[in-house]
């Protein structure tokens, strides 16, 4: 702790001249977890004062590599050079002392602490908090002004928006004197506006000589902010590019190892009659907060309605009510001409009977029982179906027949009905859930975050399946925090903010900027 104690981030950064030599060089890094090789013979070079992107699918080894650089994991073999000197980064303490800071995908902030307490943790300035706070606050205010890291030092972290939490994370790293900053999927939780703000901060950090490594799966971001980019696949760095000289298509191809169709062909269909009508639905959470306020919309046959919004603005509650998980409290829902009134008997079993299928937002919590086998998970919710059960006993042979076809048709890998679903990758788990729901032949499909934590290859497949379903005339309600996804899949888009619908637009004339403004509640349309 001693070495990180007396470092003011500011001076350390300013004294570093921009140069072309490499700030970081990783040589032949290999890391295994049991039999799994997470990183195999990885070489990486990042020049001082640049923004270097690392892209790759889930499980490609990006996070492992960065955790090695940050000292959280020990590599089995390989060398790390900082500014040309070989170093042994065996703990976060060491890496912090060497000037490496990391902003993790899941923030490392203490939710009950203030912004200041979080930012000073690990470099408190003094044994006693009061005298330390004065010293650190001065330093933090300097950093905050310098880089446009706008935060409220008195606020409790759990009350602050994620955008601010992220700025606190960056401040925290700078407070400890970071000259190299690693950001792991930093934009996953941000609105488009917040993302622009973050990128401005990153640019101003780069101007002052900070070296930045940006890990992301969003190719658009790589193209817009990085100087150089490395692509990882299967634990290896498979390609390095100068950002100017590459394209999203080329990056995607390297990520997946084959050509990927990033654009979606939307089948043009005449939309039919409304099958789902939601009228003035309001909902109070258990804590007495009004999480939905007078929501009204309708969804027609063969239509995809996208619900855009930053996570936590009522979308989850809306899905819960429509799928029968939550009781309807106020308002009215009409499903295929059947009307549901508040506090009426409405549950997920009934929803299925009415032709509503649901791909839940959180597949681990609600979509699957992870230790169950694929064949068990594939009939969850449909287990009463006479095809699979004779009232009391399940007919395993019929189930297995069904599931063997299912994993084949929907490309669930490995193609096994008797592997526990927890062992599948995120993308294949999602394909399994989607397959189950599509196979029930719904005429309304509710889909929440269909591609969260899913890699590009699987995304391609999931989008194609959704389009196929749409062309059969199924109405699809798509809830997603990924704006790109909403824009490319939907016919119509409604935007939710703080439990209300703040705008509606056709996807053909929607722009990201406009939607982003609505999502952040700045603009009512």
């Amino acid at each position, binding site marked *: 702790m001693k070495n990180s104690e007396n470092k003011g981030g500011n001076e350390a950064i300013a004294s570093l001249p921009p140069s072309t030599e490499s700030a970081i060089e990783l040589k032949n890094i290999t890391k295994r977890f049991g039999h799994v090789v997470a990183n195999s013979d990885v070489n990486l070079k990042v020049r001082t004062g640049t923004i270097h992107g690392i892209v790759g699918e889930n499980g490609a080894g990006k996070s492992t590599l960065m955790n090695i650089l940050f000292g959280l994991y020990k590599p089995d073999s390989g060398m790390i050079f900082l500014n040309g000197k070989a170093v042994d980064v065996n703990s976060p303490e060491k890496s912090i002392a060497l000037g490496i800071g990391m902003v993790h995908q899941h923030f490392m902030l203490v939710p009950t602490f203030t912004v200041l307490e979080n930012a000073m*943790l690990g470099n408190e300035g003094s044994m006693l908090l009061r005298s330390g706070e004065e010293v650190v606050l001065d330093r933090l205010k300097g950093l905050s002004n310098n880089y446009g890291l706008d935060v409220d030092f008195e606020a409790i972290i759990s009350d602050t928006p994620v955008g601010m939490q992220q700025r606190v994370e960056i401040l925290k790293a700078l407070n400890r004197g970071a000259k190299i900053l690693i950001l792991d999927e930093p934009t996953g939780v941000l609105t488009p506006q917040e993302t622009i703000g973050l990128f401005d901060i990153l640019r101003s950090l780069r101007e002052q000589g900070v070296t930045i490594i940006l890990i992301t799966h969003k190719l658009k971001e790589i193209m817009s902010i990085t100087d150089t980019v490395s692509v990882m696949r299967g634990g290896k760095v498979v390609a390095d590019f100068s950002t100017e000289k590459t394209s999203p298509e080329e990056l995607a191809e390297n990520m997946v190892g084959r050509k990927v169709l990033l654009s979606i062909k939307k089948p043009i269909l005449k939309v039919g009659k409304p099958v789902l009508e939601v009228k003035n639905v309001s909902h109070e959470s258990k804590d007495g907060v009004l999480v939905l306020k007078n929501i009204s919309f309708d969804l027609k046959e063969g239509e995809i309605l996208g619900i855009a919004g930053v996570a936590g603005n009522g979308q989850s509650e809306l899905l819960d009510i429509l799928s029968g998980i939550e009781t309807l409290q106020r308002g009215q829902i009409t499903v295929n001409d059947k009307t549901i009134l508040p506090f009426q008997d409405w549950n997920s079993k009934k929803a299925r009977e009415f032709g509503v299928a649901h791909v839940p937002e959180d597949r681990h919590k609600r979509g699957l029982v992870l230790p169950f086998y694929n064949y068990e998970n594939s009939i969850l919710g449909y287990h009463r179906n006479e095809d699979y059960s004779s009232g009391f006993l399940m007919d395993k042979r019929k189930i297995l027949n069904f599931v063997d076809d299912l994993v084949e048709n929907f490309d669930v890998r490995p193609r096994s009905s008797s592997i526990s679903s927890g062992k599948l990758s995120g993308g294949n788990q999602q394909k399994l859930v989607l397959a189950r729901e599509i196979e029930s032949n719904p005429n309304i499909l509710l889909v929440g975050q269909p591609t969260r934590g899913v890699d590009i290859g699987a995304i391609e497949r999931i989008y194609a399946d959704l389009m196929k379903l749409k062309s059969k005339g199924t109405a699809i309600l798509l809830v997603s925090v990924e704006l790109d996804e909403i824009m490319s899949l939907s016919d119509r888009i409604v935007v939710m903010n703080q439990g209300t619908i703040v705008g509606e637009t056709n996807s053909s004339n929607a722009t990201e900027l406009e939607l982003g403004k609505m999502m952040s509640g700045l603009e009512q349309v």
Partner: protein
Amino acid sequence: MLESFQIIISLLDSTIRIATPLIFCAMAGIFSERSGIIDIGLEGKMLLSAFVAATATFLTGSPIFGLFAAILVSCSASLIHGFACITNKGDQVISGLAINILASGLTITLGIALFSRGGQTPPLASEQRFMPIDFPFLDQLSFVPVFGELFVEVISGHNILVYLSVLAVFFTYYVIFKTRFGLRLRAVGEKPEAVDTAGISVIKMRYQSILIAGMLCGLAGAYLSIAHGAGFGREMSAGKGYIALAAMIFGKWNPIPTLFACLLFGFLEALGVRLEGVELIWIGEVPVQVMQALPYVLTVVLLAGFIGKARAPGAIGVPYSKEG
């Protein structure tokens, strides 16, 4: 009138005596649980250290020696707990329970083996105990009405450990909320990942916290057998560790409210002893068991409805592991 004043004075006096081990243990609990380690073994550590304090004092004749022996043994029990659930990531409740069972059996077995008195240690002479300390100016003050009497009977005339327990509360408050160590300790109990990535060892922080808890439990045990009492009796901790745990939850893991919770529980017990066999108007004689159950009932009732939700430290009970 005068008589009821006397009753109140003597009730307050016993409240303090009864609350002292609760206070030590509850502060121990705060240190341990604020760092994320459930400490259900307060009871066992107190019992062990009570036994060791009495034994060591009897063998050497020095209560100071007994006190240090008690602290040493209690800290060792903490280390066992730590080895099981910090180093080896075991279940903290199970490990704590194991310490309680171990203490209960070991003290009796060793007691019988050493002294053959059915598990008791031989009685200690008064110079082998921490005896009451009288404050100066008692004679002059005793003439002052009300306050004087309060001072003489309630504030003055306790053994050194009683005063130490009050100091322990302020020590706990100061360390936890005013120092760098305290900030890190709270952080490690709420979100150990944040501490780890700040370059601070989670394991080391947690061991330090439970060692402090061990010391405080040692003081509680020593109080029972060589200060308040004059020797060890089997199961003499009699559930005080659990009451301290309840007081800590009642006080929402904050030292000052926890102090008052300990005093309240001490008062209830003092009242219970006082009311034993006494006929109350309308109610009649209250069974002892009802009074003994009161602290627990009160905790449940108050936590359920009156003082709001008690929020435990975020990472409590969860062993910290880096890789997944």
